[in-house]
C-alpha cells in the first residue's frame, strides 16, 4: 500500500532555530505539494513541484521558507529562522499530473516556542 511519508511527525523547537521537514512522495508520482494548516487560516498551499521543478511557490514566505526536491524520492521544506507564527501542521501531498488526485502524508506538527 503506497503512501506518502513525512518526517518528523512532531517537532518542538525554539524561535530562531532552523526546521527541516522531509517528505517521501509515492514512488512514480511526479507532482509534490506542500501545505500548511492552522485553525485560523485553514489549509494553505505553500509550494507545488512538477518533475522536481518548482511551479508555484507564491504561497510561501520567501524570506524564511525554502522548498526543494533534491531527487524524485525526497522533498524538503525548510524554515530558517523559525518563528512562533510558523506553528502549524505541514502536509505534503503527491500525485500524477494526468490523474490530478493528491495523496496526502500524515503531516508534521510543528510547534515553535
Amino acid at each position: 500500500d503506497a503512501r506518502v511519508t513525512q518526517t518528523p511527525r512532531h517537532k518542538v523547537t525554539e524561535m530562531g532555530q532552523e526546521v527541516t521537514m522531509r517528505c517521501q512522495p509515492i514512488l512514480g508520482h511526479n507532482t509534490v505539494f506542500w501545505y500548511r494548516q492552522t485553525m485560523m487560516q485553514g489549509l494553505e498551499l505553500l509550494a507545488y513541484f512538477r518533475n522536481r521543478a518548482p511551479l508555484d511557490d507564491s504561497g510561501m514566505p520567501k524570506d524564511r521558507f525554502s522548498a526543494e526536491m533534491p531527487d524524485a524520492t525526497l522533498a524538503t521544506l525548510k524554515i530558517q529562522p523559525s518563528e512562533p507564527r510558523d506553528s502549524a501542521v505541514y502536509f505534503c501531498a503527491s500525485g500524477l499530473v494526468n490523474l490530478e488526485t493528491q495523496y496526502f502524508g500524515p503531516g508534521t506538527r510543528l510547534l515553535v516556542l
Partner: protein
Amino acid sequence: SQQGEEDPQALSIQEGENATMNCSYKTSINNLQWYRQNSGRGLVHLILIRSNEREKHSGRLRVTLDTSKKSSSLLITASRAADTASYFCGGYQKVTFGTGTKLQVIP
C-alpha cells in the same frame, strides 16, 4: 490559483440523515475534487467530477457540478458517525482548498 469556498462552515446532523455541502469557485476548471479530513490526519481523496459531468455517484456519495454557476455540491446519504470529519473541495492547481465544511454526525 484561487480557493474553493465550502459552505456551510459547520454542519451537525443526526446519524441516518443526509448531509449536503456546497462549494463555489471563480475560475474555469477541468475537474473538481472533494476530500475528507479526519481530525489530525491528512486529506483523503473522495471523488473527482470532470467539467463535462453533471453528477457522479460513489457509494453513499453524490456529487453535482454546475460549471455555469461555478458550484458543486457533495451529498452524503444515510450518514454515519464515522462520517464526522471536515470536507474540502478543490485540490489541483487552479482551485486550492478552502477552509472546509466541518461535519458532525451525532449517533
